Protein backbone atom coordinates (compact mmCIF):
# COMPACT_ATOMS: atom_id res chain seq x y z
CA UNK A 1 0.00 0.00 0.00
CA UNK A 2 1.39 3.40 -1.00
CA UNK A 3 0.55 6.27 1.30
CA UNK A 4 -1.43 8.92 -0.61
CA UNK A 5 0.17 12.26 -1.47
CA UNK A 6 -1.54 15.45 -0.28
CA UNK A 7 0.10 17.61 -2.98
CA UNK A 8 1.03 15.37 -5.92
CA UNK A 9 3.47 16.75 -8.46
CA UNK A 10 2.03 17.23 -11.95
CA UNK A 11 3.23 15.13 -14.88
CA UNK A 12 4.96 18.23 -16.27
CA UNK A 13 6.73 18.86 -12.96
CA UNK A 14 7.96 15.25 -12.92
CA UNK A 15 9.16 15.53 -16.50
CA UNK A 16 10.84 18.89 -15.89
CA UNK A 17 12.65 17.43 -12.91
CA UNK A 18 13.77 14.45 -14.94
CA UNK A 19 14.96 16.52 -17.90
CA UNK A 20 16.44 19.32 -15.78
CA UNK A 21 14.22 21.95 -17.36
CA UNK A 22 11.98 24.67 -15.93
CA UNK A 23 12.88 26.91 -13.00
CA UNK A 24 15.70 25.71 -10.77
CA UNK A 25 13.80 26.55 -7.56
CA UNK A 26 10.78 24.53 -8.70
CA UNK A 27 13.04 21.59 -9.57
CA UNK A 28 14.69 21.74 -6.15
CA UNK A 29 11.26 21.71 -4.48
CA UNK A 30 10.22 18.73 -6.60
CA UNK A 31 13.43 16.93 -5.71
CA UNK A 32 12.88 17.28 -2.00
CA UNK A 33 9.22 16.31 -2.36
CA UNK A 34 10.19 13.15 -4.24
CA UNK A 35 12.63 12.09 -1.55
CA UNK A 36 9.77 12.17 0.95
CA UNK A 37 6.88 10.81 -1.12
CA UNK A 38 6.18 7.21 -2.12
CA UNK A 39 3.21 8.09 -4.30
CA UNK A 40 5.01 10.59 -6.56
CA UNK A 41 8.10 8.37 -6.58
CA UNK A 42 5.92 5.53 -7.86
CA UNK A 43 4.60 7.72 -10.68
CA UNK A 44 8.09 8.87 -11.53
CA UNK A 45 9.25 5.25 -11.48
CA UNK A 46 6.66 4.38 -14.13
CA UNK A 47 7.86 7.31 -16.21
CA UNK A 48 11.47 6.21 -15.70
CA UNK A 49 10.62 2.69 -16.93
CA UNK A 50 9.19 4.16 -20.14
CA UNK A 51 12.26 6.32 -20.63
CA UNK A 52 14.60 3.40 -20.01
CA UNK A 53 12.54 1.27 -22.40
CA UNK A 54 12.89 3.88 -25.15
CA UNK A 55 16.64 4.04 -24.53
CA UNK A 56 16.95 0.26 -24.76
CA UNK A 57 15.10 0.23 -28.07
CA UNK A 58 17.38 2.93 -29.52
CA UNK A 59 20.55 1.28 -28.22
CA UNK A 60 19.38 -2.03 -29.69
CA UNK A 61 18.67 -0.49 -33.13
CA UNK A 62 15.01 -1.42 -32.77
CA UNK A 63 13.48 2.06 -32.73
CA UNK A 64 12.97 3.20 -36.33
CA UNK A 65 13.12 6.98 -36.29
CA UNK A 66 14.45 10.04 -38.05
CA UNK A 67 17.18 11.43 -35.83
CA UNK A 68 19.99 13.96 -35.72
CA UNK A 69 23.75 13.43 -35.63
CA UNK A 70 23.70 13.70 -31.82
CA UNK A 71 21.98 10.31 -31.62
CA UNK A 72 24.80 8.67 -33.57
CA UNK A 73 27.42 10.33 -31.37
CA UNK A 74 25.66 9.03 -28.28
CA UNK A 75 25.38 5.52 -29.74
CA UNK A 76 29.13 5.52 -30.39
CA UNK A 77 29.80 6.70 -26.84
CA UNK A 78 27.63 3.83 -25.63
CA UNK A 79 29.86 1.42 -27.53
CA UNK A 80 27.22 0.37 -30.05
CA UNK A 81 28.38 -0.97 -33.43
CA UNK A 82 26.81 1.22 -36.10
CA UNK A 83 26.50 0.17 -39.74
CA UNK A 84 26.05 3.35 -41.65
CA UNK A 85 25.30 3.99 -45.32
CA UNK A 86 25.67 7.51 -46.71
CA UNK A 87 23.87 7.93 -49.99
CA UNK A 88 23.78 11.17 -52.01
CA UNK A 89 20.61 12.24 -53.80
CA UNK A 90 20.21 10.05 -56.88
CA UNK A 91 22.67 7.49 -55.53
CA UNK A 92 22.53 3.87 -54.52
CA UNK A 93 24.45 1.44 -52.36
CA UNK A 94 24.94 -2.29 -51.84
CA UNK A 95 24.20 -2.99 -48.23
CA UNK A 96 23.99 -5.71 -45.64
CA UNK A 97 23.76 -6.24 -41.88
CA UNK A 98 26.55 -8.12 -40.12
CA UNK A 99 25.83 -10.32 -37.09
CA UNK A 100 27.76 -7.94 -34.83
CA UNK A 101 26.00 -4.80 -35.98
CA UNK A 102 23.83 -3.15 -33.32
CA UNK A 103 22.37 -0.24 -35.22
CA UNK A 104 21.61 0.36 -38.91
CA UNK A 105 21.61 3.91 -40.25
CA UNK A 106 20.81 5.46 -43.62
CA UNK A 107 22.11 8.98 -44.22
CA UNK A 108 20.26 10.48 -47.13
CA UNK A 109 21.98 13.52 -48.64
CA UNK A 110 19.55 16.32 -49.52
CA UNK A 111 19.35 20.09 -49.65
CA UNK A 112 16.81 20.89 -46.92
CA UNK A 113 17.55 24.56 -46.29
CA UNK A 114 14.52 26.15 -47.93
CA UNK A 115 12.04 23.40 -47.17
CA UNK A 116 9.21 23.50 -44.63
CA UNK A 117 7.81 19.98 -44.88
CA UNK A 118 9.44 16.73 -45.97
CA UNK A 119 7.79 13.35 -46.59
CA UNK A 120 9.75 10.10 -46.77
CA UNK A 121 8.48 7.49 -49.25
CA UNK A 122 9.63 3.90 -49.33
CA UNK A 123 9.10 0.94 -51.63
CA UNK A 124 10.54 -2.57 -51.28
CA UNK A 125 10.98 -4.40 -54.62
CA UNK A 126 7.67 -4.06 -56.50
CA UNK A 127 5.57 -3.57 -53.38
CA UNK A 128 3.32 -0.67 -52.60
CA UNK A 129 4.97 2.64 -51.83
CA UNK A 130 4.55 3.73 -48.20
CA UNK A 131 4.69 7.32 -47.05
CA UNK A 132 5.82 8.79 -43.75
CA UNK A 133 4.42 12.29 -43.72
CA UNK A 134 6.09 15.34 -42.21
CA UNK A 135 9.33 13.90 -40.92
CA UNK A 136 11.39 16.15 -38.65
CA UNK A 137 14.70 17.40 -40.00
CA UNK A 138 17.58 19.73 -39.32
CA UNK A 139 17.45 22.27 -42.19
CA UNK A 140 21.18 22.94 -41.94
CA UNK A 141 22.31 19.30 -41.86
CA UNK A 142 22.29 18.61 -45.60
CA UNK A 143 20.98 15.11 -44.90
CA UNK A 144 18.22 13.12 -43.29
CA UNK A 145 19.41 10.48 -40.83
CA UNK A 146 17.17 7.44 -40.55
CA UNK A 147 17.50 4.68 -37.94
CA UNK A 148 16.30 1.51 -39.68
CA UNK A 149 14.87 -1.42 -37.67
CA UNK A 150 17.95 -3.65 -37.76
CA UNK A 151 16.19 -6.86 -36.73
CA UNK A 152 13.62 -6.53 -39.52
CA UNK A 153 16.19 -5.73 -42.20
CA UNK A 154 18.44 -8.56 -40.99
CA UNK A 155 15.64 -11.09 -41.34
CA UNK A 156 14.65 -10.06 -44.88
CA UNK A 157 15.89 -11.92 -47.99
CA UNK A 158 17.78 -10.03 -50.69
CA UNK A 159 15.72 -7.06 -51.79
CA UNK A 160 15.88 -3.57 -53.20
CA UNK A 161 14.46 -0.68 -51.20
CA UNK A 162 13.92 2.65 -52.89
CA UNK A 163 13.50 5.74 -50.80
CA UNK A 164 12.37 9.15 -51.95
CA UNK A 165 12.42 12.43 -50.11
CA UNK A 166 9.87 14.95 -51.28
CA UNK A 167 9.35 18.54 -50.23
CA UNK A 168 5.68 19.32 -49.78
CA UNK A 169 5.08 22.88 -50.93
CA UNK A 170 2.02 25.05 -51.59
CA UNK A 171 2.34 24.44 -55.34
CA UNK A 172 2.77 20.70 -55.04
CA UNK A 173 5.54 18.24 -54.35
CA UNK A 174 9.19 18.43 -55.34
CA UNK A 175 11.55 15.46 -55.23
CA UNK A 176 14.61 16.22 -53.12
CA UNK A 177 16.35 12.93 -53.71
CA UNK A 178 15.97 9.27 -54.62
CA UNK A 179 18.06 6.56 -52.98
CA UNK A 180 18.46 2.87 -53.76
CA UNK A 181 19.50 0.26 -51.18
CA UNK A 182 20.34 -3.15 -52.63
CA UNK A 183 20.29 -5.41 -49.62
CA UNK A 184 22.11 -8.74 -49.46
CA UNK A 185 21.75 -10.84 -46.32
CA UNK A 186 24.92 -11.68 -44.44
CA UNK A 187 27.23 -13.64 -45.17
CA UNK A 188 26.80 -12.52 -48.76
CA UNK A 189 29.45 -9.87 -49.10
CA UNK A 190 28.35 -6.70 -50.89
CA UNK A 191 30.07 -6.42 -54.28
CA UNK A 192 32.97 -3.93 -54.34
Amino acid at each position, binding site marked *: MTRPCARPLTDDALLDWWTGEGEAAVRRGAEEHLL*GCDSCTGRLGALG*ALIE*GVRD*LVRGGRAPAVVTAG*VLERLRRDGRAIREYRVPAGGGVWCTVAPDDDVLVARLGAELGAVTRVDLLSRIDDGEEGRIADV*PFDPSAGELIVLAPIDEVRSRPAHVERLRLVAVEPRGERVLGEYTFEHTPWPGRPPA
Partner: protein
Amino acid sequence: MVQTPGLEAVADAELARLVAHGPPEEAGRAEAELCRRLGPRLRLYGLRHLRDGAAADDLAQEVLLLILERLRAGRVREPERLASFALGACRLVVRNQRRGRRRRERLLDRFGGALPSSAEPAVTGLDQRRLRSCLEALAPRDRTVLVLTFYVEKTSAEIAAELALSPENVRAVRHRALVRLRDCVGGGAA
Protein backbone atom coordinates in the same frame (compact mmCIF):
# COMPACT_ATOMS: atom_id res chain seq x y z
CA MET B 1 10.51 -5.27 -0.77
CA VAL B 2 7.78 -6.32 1.68
CA GLN B 3 6.17 -3.70 3.92
CA THR B 4 6.83 -3.90 7.62
CA PRO B 5 3.54 -4.90 9.35
CA GLY B 6 2.15 -2.17 11.57
CA LEU B 7 4.42 0.55 10.23
CA GLU B 8 2.94 1.17 6.77
CA ALA B 9 0.95 4.20 7.91
CA VAL B 10 3.69 5.69 10.09
CA ALA B 11 5.25 8.90 8.76
CA ASP B 12 8.91 8.95 7.72
CA ALA B 13 9.79 11.31 10.57
CA GLU B 14 8.26 8.97 13.15
CA LEU B 15 10.21 6.06 11.69
CA ALA B 16 13.38 8.14 11.95
CA ARG B 17 12.63 8.82 15.63
CA LEU B 18 12.06 5.11 16.26
CA VAL B 19 15.40 4.27 14.67
CA ALA B 20 17.12 6.87 16.83
CA HIS B 21 15.40 6.34 20.14
CA GLY B 22 13.13 3.28 20.00
CA PRO B 23 13.71 -0.05 21.73
CA PRO B 24 16.06 -2.30 19.67
CA GLU B 25 13.40 -4.53 18.13
CA GLU B 26 11.18 -1.60 17.21
CA ALA B 27 14.17 0.32 15.87
CA GLY B 28 15.10 -2.64 13.65
CA ARG B 29 11.60 -2.81 12.19
CA ALA B 30 11.58 0.95 11.65
CA GLU B 31 14.92 0.70 9.83
CA ALA B 32 13.54 -1.98 7.55
CA GLU B 33 10.49 0.10 6.71
CA LEU B 34 12.58 3.21 6.16
CA CYS B 35 14.88 1.31 3.78
CA ARG B 36 11.89 -0.04 1.88
CA ARG B 37 10.56 3.47 1.38
CA LEU B 38 13.77 5.38 0.78
CA GLY B 39 15.46 2.84 -1.51
CA PRO B 40 13.34 3.52 -4.62
CA ARG B 41 13.32 7.28 -4.00
CA LEU B 42 17.08 7.42 -3.71
CA ARG B 43 17.55 5.22 -6.76
CA LEU B 44 15.42 7.54 -8.86
CA TYR B 45 17.45 10.49 -7.66
CA GLY B 46 20.55 8.58 -8.73
CA LEU B 47 19.09 7.73 -12.14
CA ARG B 48 18.18 11.35 -12.72
CA HIS B 49 21.60 12.70 -11.84
CA LEU B 50 23.91 9.85 -12.83
CA ARG B 51 21.93 8.34 -15.74
CA ASP B 52 23.17 4.88 -14.92
CA GLY B 53 21.33 2.07 -13.16
CA ALA B 54 24.34 0.53 -11.41
CA ALA B 55 25.57 3.94 -10.23
CA ALA B 56 22.06 4.73 -8.99
CA ASP B 57 22.02 1.47 -7.01
CA ASP B 58 25.37 2.39 -5.47
CA LEU B 59 24.11 5.83 -4.57
CA ALA B 60 20.96 4.45 -2.93
CA GLN B 61 22.97 2.04 -0.84
CA GLU B 62 25.57 4.60 0.19
CA VAL B 63 23.01 7.23 1.19
CA LEU B 64 20.87 4.68 3.06
CA LEU B 65 23.89 3.58 5.08
CA LEU B 66 24.76 7.18 5.83
CA ILE B 67 21.21 7.99 6.96
CA LEU B 68 20.96 4.91 9.19
CA GLU B 69 24.37 5.58 10.69
CA ARG B 70 23.41 9.17 11.54
CA LEU B 71 19.98 8.18 12.87
CA ARG B 72 21.40 5.45 15.09
CA ALA B 73 23.93 7.93 16.46
CA GLY B 74 21.17 10.46 17.11
CA ARG B 75 22.81 12.93 14.73
CA VAL B 76 19.75 13.85 12.66
CA ARG B 77 18.40 16.78 14.63
CA GLU B 78 15.13 17.31 12.80
CA PRO B 79 13.64 13.95 11.77
CA GLU B 80 10.69 15.73 10.17
CA ARG B 81 13.23 17.12 7.69
CA LEU B 82 14.56 13.69 6.75
CA ALA B 83 13.99 14.37 3.04
CA SER B 84 16.23 17.46 3.26
CA PHE B 85 18.89 15.46 5.00
CA ALA B 86 18.64 12.73 2.35
CA LEU B 87 18.87 15.36 -0.38
CA GLY B 88 22.07 16.78 1.08
CA ALA B 89 23.58 13.31 1.33
CA CYS B 90 22.55 12.52 -2.25
CA ARG B 91 24.24 15.65 -3.57
CA LEU B 92 27.45 14.78 -1.79
CA VAL B 93 27.51 11.22 -3.14
CA VAL B 94 26.64 12.34 -6.67
CA ARG B 95 29.54 14.82 -6.64
CA ASN B 96 31.93 12.03 -5.64
CA GLN B 97 30.56 9.61 -8.23
CA ARG B 98 30.83 12.22 -10.98
CA ARG B 99 34.51 12.70 -10.26
CA GLY B 100 35.03 8.98 -10.76
CA ARG B 101 32.92 8.98 -13.88
CA ARG B 102 34.83 11.86 -15.48
CA ARG B 103 38.01 9.88 -15.03
CA ARG B 104 36.37 6.81 -16.63
CA GLU B 105 35.16 8.93 -19.57
CA ARG B 106 38.63 10.35 -20.16
CA LEU B 107 39.96 6.79 -20.30
CA LEU B 108 37.14 5.74 -22.62
CA ASP B 109 37.92 8.62 -24.98
CA ARG B 110 41.55 7.50 -25.12
CA PHE B 111 41.08 3.76 -25.33
CA GLY B 112 37.37 3.24 -26.13
CA GLY B 113 37.98 2.41 -29.80
CA ALA B 114 39.86 -0.72 -28.77
CA LEU B 115 36.97 -2.04 -26.68
CA PRO B 116 34.52 -4.60 -28.09
CA SER B 117 30.89 -3.64 -28.60
CA SER B 118 28.95 -3.64 -25.34
CA ALA B 119 26.49 -6.40 -24.57
CA GLU B 120 22.81 -6.16 -25.53
CA PRO B 121 21.23 -3.59 -23.24
CA ALA B 122 19.32 -4.72 -20.21
CA VAL B 123 15.61 -4.99 -20.75
CA THR B 124 13.36 -3.07 -18.39
CA GLY B 125 10.28 -4.55 -16.74
CA LEU B 126 8.19 -3.24 -19.63
CA ASP B 127 6.93 -5.39 -22.47
CA GLN B 128 9.49 -4.28 -25.08
CA ARG B 129 7.44 -5.56 -27.99
CA ARG B 130 4.46 -3.54 -26.87
CA LEU B 131 6.57 -0.47 -26.20
CA ARG B 132 8.11 -0.72 -29.64
CA SER B 133 4.78 -0.95 -31.43
CA CYS B 134 3.49 1.99 -29.36
CA LEU B 135 6.59 4.02 -30.20
CA GLU B 136 6.20 3.23 -33.89
CA ALA B 137 2.56 4.32 -33.72
CA LEU B 138 3.60 7.85 -32.72
CA ALA B 139 3.95 10.59 -35.32
CA PRO B 140 7.53 10.82 -36.67
CA ARG B 141 8.14 14.17 -34.99
CA ASP B 142 6.89 12.87 -31.61
CA ARG B 143 9.19 9.86 -31.85
CA THR B 144 12.19 11.98 -32.74
CA VAL B 145 11.59 14.37 -29.85
CA LEU B 146 11.32 11.46 -27.39
CA VAL B 147 14.52 9.87 -28.70
CA LEU B 148 16.44 13.16 -28.52
CA THR B 149 15.09 13.90 -25.03
CA PHE B 150 15.51 10.52 -23.41
CA TYR B 151 18.40 8.97 -25.25
CA VAL B 152 20.60 11.95 -26.10
CA GLU B 153 19.28 13.98 -23.16
CA LYS B 154 18.93 17.18 -25.09
CA THR B 155 16.92 20.04 -23.65
CA SER B 156 13.84 21.38 -25.40
CA ALA B 157 15.85 24.46 -26.44
CA GLU B 158 18.55 22.29 -28.03
CA ILE B 159 16.01 20.13 -29.84
CA ALA B 160 14.16 23.23 -31.00
CA ALA B 161 17.35 24.66 -32.49
CA GLU B 162 18.09 21.42 -34.36
CA LEU B 163 14.61 20.84 -35.74
CA ALA B 164 13.68 24.47 -36.45
CA LEU B 165 10.87 24.47 -33.88
CA SER B 166 10.20 26.65 -30.84
CA PRO B 167 11.14 25.32 -27.35
CA GLU B 168 7.47 25.62 -26.34
CA ASN B 169 6.51 23.53 -29.31
CA VAL B 170 9.06 20.87 -28.37
CA ARG B 171 7.76 20.76 -24.79
CA ALA B 172 4.18 20.41 -26.05
CA VAL B 173 5.18 17.65 -28.48
CA ARG B 174 7.11 15.85 -25.74
CA HIS B 175 4.25 16.03 -23.27
CA ARG B 176 1.73 14.78 -25.83
CA ALA B 177 4.02 12.00 -27.03
CA LEU B 178 4.73 10.77 -23.55
CA VAL B 179 1.05 10.70 -22.57
CA ARG B 180 0.23 8.76 -25.76
CA LEU B 181 3.07 6.34 -25.21
CA ARG B 182 2.12 5.74 -21.58
CA ASP B 183 -1.55 5.25 -22.42
CA CYS B 184 -0.69 2.90 -25.27
CA VAL B 185 1.72 0.80 -23.21
CA GLY B 186 -0.81 0.78 -20.39
CA GLY B 187 -3.34 -1.04 -22.54
CA GLY B 188 -4.68 1.36 -25.16
CA ALA B 189 -4.46 0.87 -28.89
CA ALA B 190 -0.98 0.45 -30.44
